[in-house]
């Protein structure tokens, strides 16, 4: 057949006088086309690589490193949206990815975006921000914006970039404004680290005061956004404490020791909030122990909000963890704080929930058999309140009409909105 085809082809070619070189080129092009279609990387091939990461590496750290390597390759070769597709797939398949703080992994996606997209284009209008980029508590934006500001730590620049991003992404990232200023605080703090070269100057105050002053000096923003910025500053500081950077360590038994020395009340508030995010080092995943540690501080006025942060943090670190245990321990805290403690579980499930389906784990939790009737009501209420953090009104309407969310949650959401 092939020989016959070649004879016919040759006769045809000799009639129209096309050279053998041209025939070769055409044949080559066709073969390349076929090879490209056949071998082009698709999600299936990445699925194999992702699976290999899990099979070849025994420890969680190596597996995560391997998965992040695959995601980096996809990011570099195919772009942000495709990389988030792989990120979501890994999250949904492997609990040691979702259960090791997916916010931190999303941060790394922000690093990649800054490097491969922003530094390349030097223009945010050229960049791609897909819907799933808000996954895992907007970690992508924390990572991206912190580097943007780290490399240009100017007050005006932060305001300008946040206005642009919020305006452009209002349809996909409903609470980006707060996140942007929080990440701006990260950037101010990290830029400060470039300035303090002499280890004898490495005091907490030397590191935090100038960045906090920048947050205070943000001119065009609300009190709330300045507060987000200050939290961003202390967030970086507590991250440093966590890994012993610049000689700082987190005091697990007395977490507010330093905060109590901060005189400025706004700064102290931000310090308390960020120290509480690491409270698990002292309390483990026990809301009751966390509350006892919170009470060692001097901010009685903040106890309830700090408990919310502490418990939500426990859930965020492992959204597939033991929520029944958390629930039973929340029942043991002061009666007036029980509701807040419980609602924090729902908050945490939303915050680090499945990318694109952040409501899913919370919805599932609300139908748990171990919940008391009153807790089911709180659960629905909190889930309804959190929906708008990740979804627009039209998206929520679709989710409700598809039956993906419980009727009770949808009914409360309609009343609230």
């Amino acid at each position: 057949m092939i020989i016959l085809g070649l004879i016919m082809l040759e006769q045809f070619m000799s009639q129209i006088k096309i050279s053998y070189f041209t025939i070769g080129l055409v044949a080559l092009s066709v073969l390349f086309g076929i090879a490209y279609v056949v071998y082009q990387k698709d999600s299936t091939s990445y699925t194999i690589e992702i699976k290999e990461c899990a099979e070849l590496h025994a420890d969680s750290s190596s597996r995560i490193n391997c998965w992040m390597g695959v995601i980096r390759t996809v990011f570099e070769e195919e772009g942000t949206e495709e990389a988030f597709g792989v990120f979501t797939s890994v999250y949904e398949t492997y609990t040691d990815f979702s259960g090791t703080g997916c916010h931190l992994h999303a941060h790394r996606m922000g690093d990649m975006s800054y490097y491969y997209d922003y530094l390349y284009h030097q223009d945010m209008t050229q960049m791609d921000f897909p819907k799933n980029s808000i996954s895992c508590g907007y970690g992508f934006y924390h990572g991206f914006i912190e580097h943007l500001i780290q490399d240009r730590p100017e007050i005006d620049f932060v305001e300008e970039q946040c206005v642009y991003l919020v305006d452009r992404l209002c349809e996909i990232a409903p609470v980006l404004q707060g996140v942007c200023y929080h990440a701006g605080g990260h950037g101010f703090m990290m830029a400060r680290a470039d300035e303090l070269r002499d280890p004898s100057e490495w005091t907490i105050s030397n590191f935090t005061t100038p960045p906090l002053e920048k947050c205070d000096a943000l001119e065009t923003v609300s009190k709330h956004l300045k507060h987000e910025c200050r939290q961003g500053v202390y967030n970086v500081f507590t991250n440093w404490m966590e890994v012993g950077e610049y000689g700082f360590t987190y005091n697990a038994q007395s977490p507010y020791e330093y905060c109590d020395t901060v005189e400025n009340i706004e700064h102290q508030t931000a310090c308390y909030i960020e120290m509480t995010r690491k409270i698990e080092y002292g309390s483990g995943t026990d809301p009751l122990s966390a509350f006892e540690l919170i009470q060692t501080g001097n901010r009685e006025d903040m106890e309830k909000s700090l408990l919310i942060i502490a418990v939500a943090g426990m859930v965020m670190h492992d959204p597939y963890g033991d929520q029944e245990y958390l629930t039973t321990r929340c029942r043991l805290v002061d009666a007036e704080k029980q509701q807040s403690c419980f609602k924090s579980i729902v908050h945490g499930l939303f915050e680090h929930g499945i990318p694109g389906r952040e409501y899913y784990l919370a919805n599932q939790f609300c139908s748990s058999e171990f919940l008391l009737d009153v807790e089911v009501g709180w659960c629905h209420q909190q889930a309804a309140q959190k929906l708008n953090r990740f979804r627009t009104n039209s998206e929520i309407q679709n989710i409700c009409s598809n039956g993906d969310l419980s009727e009770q949650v949808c009914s409360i959401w309609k009343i609230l909105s």
Partner: protein
Amino acid sequence: MKTIKKIKKNKFQKLFLGILALVTLGGIIFLNIGSPIETEVATGLLDKEVVVVLTPQGYEPSDFTVPVGTKVTFTSVTGKPHWPASNLHPTHEQYSEFDPKRPIEPEESWSFVFDKSGRWDFHDHIRSYYAGTIYVTN
């Protein structure tokens, strides 16, 4: 008639060989383009010392292969402190010794001898968007 047939046969052979050669060449190029890991054997291999420079564009070289026992020296021309360290960021537990545990001044360098074989992904701890991979072979 015989001559015409011979000419035709020769033409077919040429055509066939031409296509075969091009396909082989194309295949080689395609496989090289599609290679999952782009790596280079670092220069200075014989000296068992490699210098990696952090530039505003990233590490140069960023992906390379060295034998066990090679000393890799990290320097920077960014004018800012740098901190090369093993993944994961920020804990560096993949190869915990591969971490100066402090920022390195812009004009200062830091060296590390790789005595464990394997694939070692690394990054700049201060600007974690800069990353690379060192393949250490036995």
